[in-house]
């Protein structure tokens, strides 16, 4: 009924070893993750527990056979790559050729932003630590989604949803939303086409890499709606919608609106509130056409015969969401839900007037404004390498070199959070999901934890021959309210385990 929901983000960072363009990215990624793990995690390192992972389970109700799956889809086999759980409940690991940070489970958009930004600081520390090894060259990390040479890597979102919602309804109502939401959530890109062969600026980092409407793959034939179905919760009650279409955002407000507006649309889908047919003709082509027109004038053809800009289509969703919140919650709507609605409306109305009016809030507009200023001052064509460099360096996570960070420091981009709460979130979990239990166990009992995952913590306790698995199947249990006092009281893992199994 609101923006509240169990959700999180999973971000793969671009990686390069300074002065060594041929360096093995898997090795470099492992060095980054291992450097952080060695320096911050005390004693024994908890392994990731793969028991509940099923990356080949399809939300449409079947399993893909391992034989037909591409090797890149097999993420559940422990390849020996670095993979650790942090005391904030997050997962830090190597996925294919990138270091990846998955936030702990959060319950609201603001918390997602906080633990997402904490992930940037974790990666910043990790890269610095890896580069501090004597003789090691500096490793640079980028929160972006493409090298502009044909490769793309993801910034995924996940949303817990009711299993009872038919998947077809999700596809129907979410596809037009995803085709159009990039006008708010895009990170901006210099280069058109997967390998950037055409010159120009586009709204989204990812649009050119999407080729089908619905599918299980994430590394090839990327679909607008991804059907991976790993609920990490009771599968009879929940599915976990895996959203792969988003850009990695630096701007806190971009991430906030990305997650907040999507959560609202999912709530409307679950409650069967959307009665309008907002289906867009040719969604894959439309997705790209919207991205390729930063003036935001491109007209989408709707199956009902209307033509709308992406901003106008977003306004249709906003209008529905306003009515929905008013109908279900009225004056009881929580502050964040109201704030998301107000900011969404404000951003859309300014995008409609002149997109540049959103340069203080949205990544793609901030980036475009900077690029246009350079073009004007230096008389640069879109193919000039300096503009590509600005695109890339916008996402450099180092505060002294990253252009996003410089713009924030110059007061050119607004923030939502304070530095101290982001730093706090590097080490502390959210208090209102099972991430609280996981994070505090890692903090207090690192020596006795053999492995952990989203839905379990596995203890290796003295006096027990086998490992003891504590399932955390319900994402909303194991909160501070449930176990805070218990964890305060139990100074050893044995005491905790005894209390839990009594």
């Amino acid at each position, binding site marked *: 009924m609101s923006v509240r929901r169990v959700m999180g983000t999973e971000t*793969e960072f*671009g*990686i*390069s070893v300074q002065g060594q*363009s041929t360096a093995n*990215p898997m090795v470099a990624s492992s060095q980054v993750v291992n450097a952080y793990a060695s320096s911050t995690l005390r004693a024994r390192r908890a392994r990731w527990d793969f028991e509940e992972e099923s990356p080949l389970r399809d939300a449409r109700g079947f399993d893909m056979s391992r034989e037909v799956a591409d090797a*890149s889809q097999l993420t559940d086999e422990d390849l020996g790559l670095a993979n650790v759980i942090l005391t904030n409940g997050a997962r830090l690991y190597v*996925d*294919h*050729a*990138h270091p*990846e940070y998955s936030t702990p489970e959060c319950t609201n958009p603001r918390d997602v932003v906080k633990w997402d930004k904490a992930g940037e600081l974790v990666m910043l520390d990790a890269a610095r630590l890896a580069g501090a090894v004597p003789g090691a060259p500096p490793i640079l990390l*980028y929160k972006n989604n*493409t*090298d*502009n*040479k044909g*490769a*793309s*890597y*993801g910034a*995924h979102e996940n949303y817990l949803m009711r299993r009872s919602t038919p998947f077809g309804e999700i596809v129907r109502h979410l596809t037009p939303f995803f085709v159009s939401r990039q006008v708010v959530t895009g990170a901006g890109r210099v280069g058109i086409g997967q390998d950037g062969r055409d010159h120009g600026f586009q709204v989204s980092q990812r649009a050119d890499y999407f080729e089908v409407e619905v599918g299980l793959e*994430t*590394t090839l034939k990327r679909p607008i709606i991804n059907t991976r179905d790993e609920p990490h919760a009771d599968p009879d009650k929940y599915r976990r919608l895996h959203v*792969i279409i988003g850009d990695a955002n630096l701007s806190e407000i971009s991430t906030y609106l990305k997650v907040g507006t999507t959560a609202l649309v999912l709530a409307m889908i679950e409650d069967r509130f959307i009665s309008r047919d907002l289906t867009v003709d040719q969604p894959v082509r439309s997705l790209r056409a919207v991205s390729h027109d930063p003036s935001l004038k491109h007209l989408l053809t709707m199956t009902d015969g209307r033509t709308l800009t992406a901003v106008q289509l977003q306004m249709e969703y906003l209008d529905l969401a306003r009515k929905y919140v008013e109908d279900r919650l009225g004056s009881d709507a929580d502050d964040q839900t109201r704030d998301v609605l107000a900011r969404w409306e404000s951003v859309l109305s300014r995008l409609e007037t002149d997109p540049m009016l959103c340069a203080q809030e949205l990544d793609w507009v901030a980036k475009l404004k*900077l690029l246009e*200023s*350079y073009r*004007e*001052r*230096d*008389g*640069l*064509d879109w*193919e*000039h*390498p*300096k503009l*590509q*460099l*600005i695109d*890339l*360096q916008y996402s450099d996570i180092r505060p*002294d*070199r990253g*252009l996003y960070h*410089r*713009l924030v420091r*110059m007061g*050119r981009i607004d923030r939502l959070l304070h530095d101290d709460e982001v730093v706090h979130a590097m080490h502390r979990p959210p208090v209102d999901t099972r991430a609280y239990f996981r994070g505090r166990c890692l903090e207090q009992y690192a020596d006795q934890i053999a492995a952990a995952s989203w839905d379990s913590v596995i203890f290796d306790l003295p006096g027990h021959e086998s490992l003891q698995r504590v399932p955390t199947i319900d994402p909303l249990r194991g909160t501070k309210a449930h176990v805070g006092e218990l964890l305060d009281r139990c100074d050893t893992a044995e005491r905790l385990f005894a209390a839990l199994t009594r």
Partner: protein
Amino acid sequence: MARDGGQQHKQPKKSSETEEATEVAPQEDVAERKEQLDEDIDAILDEIDDVLETNAEDFVKSFIQKGGE
């Protein structure tokens, strides 16, 4: 390389005196505001210039990633 590599800075804007002489008051305000804005942008670009990686072409070329996800 830029397609029309010889492209140079835009023509300098008319001096403010000329504008003052030829334009009515409200537009003069707009011109002043624009001037202020231009100065702000110049300051921003100067600061960004200081942190941009040198040799943009090589730097961008050497940024090669493998696909992910």
